[in-house]
């Protein structure tokens, strides 16, 4: 029952987001076409007659609004997100072409920052009030005060330019020929280091703080006292009793973290000119490519809401109390 309610809820959210996407260009002053060729944009998209025709057909402005809405929804179901003005290709195609790089970046960062955040948070809570805890807390609060793009720029300057250790641009060396598949893998990983590090550093604070709070809460629980009354060692209690209970809220948080990471890629991919979806969004903003911008918005939103739904589902499986309700 709980699951069905959730499903209905997420479906409603999806409908609302689609509607926002539909109405936004239509409620803006002027018709969508004049707004699409905004002279205020840094570099307004040049419209050929042919493109104009394509857009007119896409928006279907000559039809009544209800019909436009239905044909928009039908289009979405068929994967039709519109036509990118700048790239001159279907929006979905443009997005899918960039997807693998964002997945690589977000995947790598999640795989590093979640376990690291959990470890540091648990360590901090276990040493509550001691120097180790205070030191960790202040350090992490401090690095969390850096906006990710600024952090990325600093890493570019120090590790990319001053020390010349890592490439600062793109996901692989342009026009490179590799003697072996390992060469290619190494090149990709080499390009991944700085952007992934930026994402990890700028997002570790959330996981750390949540784990620390969760752990502090658990350590004050009666069952921890019970465990100590049995004569169990501190290490054992930490691993077997405290950790599992403290991790439960982290599961939900991790999905939200993935959401934050996806948003974080907008800045990090921009700084490193990393060819993923975040960088695509920056270009869409720069060239005021609205169909592309809205397509990416929709794509990111669905990914983030989807991650939340998955987290809810996993949580239900992990916590024996919810499972049996």
């Amino acid at each position, binding site marked *: 029952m709980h699951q069905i309610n959730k499903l209905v809820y997420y479906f409603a959210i999806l409908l609302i987001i689609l509607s926002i996407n539909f109405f936004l260009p239509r409620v803006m002053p002027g018709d969508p076409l004049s707004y699409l060729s905004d002279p205020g944009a840094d570099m307004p998209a040049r419209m050929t007659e042919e493109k104009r025709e394509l857009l007119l057909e896409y928006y279907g402005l000559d039809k009544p609004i209800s019909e436009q809405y239905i044909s928009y929804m039908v289009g979405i179901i068929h994967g039709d997100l519109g036509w990118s003005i700048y790239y001159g290709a279907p929006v979905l195609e443009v997005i899918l072409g960039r997807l693998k790089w964002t997945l690589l970046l977000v995947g790598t960062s999640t795989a590093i920052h979640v376990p690291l955040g959990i470890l540091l948070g648990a360590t901090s809570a276990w040493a509550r009030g001691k120097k180790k805890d205070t030191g960790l807390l202040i350090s992490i609060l401090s690095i969390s005060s850096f906006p990710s793009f600024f952090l990325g720029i600093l890493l570019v300057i120090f590790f990319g330019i001053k020390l010349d250790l890592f490439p600062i641009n793109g996901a692989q060396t342009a026009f490179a020929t590799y003697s072996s598949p390992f060469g290619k893998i190494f090149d990709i990983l080499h390009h991944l280091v700085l952007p992934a590090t930026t994402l990890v550093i700028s997002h570790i604070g959330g996981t750390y703080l949540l784990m620390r709070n969760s752990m502090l809460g658990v350590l004050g*629980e*009666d*069952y921890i*006292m*019970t*465990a*100590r*009354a*049995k*004569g*169990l*060692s501190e290490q*054992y209690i930490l691993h*077997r*009793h405290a950790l*599992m*209970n403290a991790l*439960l809220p982290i599961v939900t948080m991790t999905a939200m973290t993935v959401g934050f990471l996806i948003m974080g890629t907008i800045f990090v991919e921009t700084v490193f000119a990393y060819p993923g979806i975040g960088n695509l969004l920056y270009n869409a903003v720069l060239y005021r490519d609205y169909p592309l911008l809205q397509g990416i918005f929709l794509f990111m939103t669905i990914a983030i809401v989807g991650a939340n739904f998955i987290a809810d589902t996993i949580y239900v499986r992990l*916590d*024996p*109390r919810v499972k*049996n309700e």
Partner: protein
Amino acid sequence: MTLLEISDLKTHFPTQSGIVRAVDTIDLSIRERETFGLIGETGCGKTVLGLTLMRLLHPTTTVEGTIRYRGKNLLTISEAEMRLIRGEEIAMILQNPTTSLNPVMRVGEQIAEAIRLHQGLRRRAAKEKAVEMLDSVRIPAASRRANEYPHEFSGGMKQRAMIAMGLACDPALIIADEPTKGLDVTIKAQITELIKETAKEKAMLLITHDLGVARALCDRIALMYAGELVEYAATEEIFENPLHPYTRGFLGSLPGNGLVPIPGMSPSLIDLPDGCRFHPRCSHAKAVCRKKHPELIEVEAGHFVRCFDA
């Protein structure tokens, strides 16, 4: 034979509003196989006394005096030595089984882990022993129940599981903190019966505010008020010949004796009254009670009272 001897015990802990004197100079001893009842209102420090014996309090707590268990002073041995005593020699059954059981661990496993630790049994054998323990506290279908999580147990069953956990390593002394709190009448009677059986073999410190349960189970009873003992004697003696006004008040509040509550509230352990700590609520308070703090005196063999009137 004395099993546990507490002398001059003080447990104080600092808070933002001042020092809480939760246990303030307590002397008492528990003999082998004796059931000793510690009775008092909520907030009189009886649970803190139990936790002090187990050394389970926050490191900022100051504990003074001696706790001698089979000749060893529990307050001076190392933490490693203390861990070997917890659960194996002295077990504590904490109050409120609902929050005292780990919600995400199977009940059987929570019993088995202590057995594995102290008796060195393998996982499998420990699990079998845990099922045996659940069976011995009369949980039906114990082998199936051992694989369930605490929230699948009823209140009475959780309390049984807590008792099984306490008994698992066959300790010499059990500290049971309010084992019958919050249970309805029939379940309470069953749990009381269960504790009575287990207490035959072992020494027990029963912490409760339920005089009826204490009378049914204990050999001796002590009454605790505002961090100190005010009266203690053999159970029958307490009920036949109560000397301290607090004891009499407590007995008067029993259902069979007219349900008359003691007026007033127990004092804050941060700001204790001068003189006798009970004098603000005492109907017999005299001038001396406000000024001088009475000592615990032995009025008859084995009957101690802290009152100028006795």
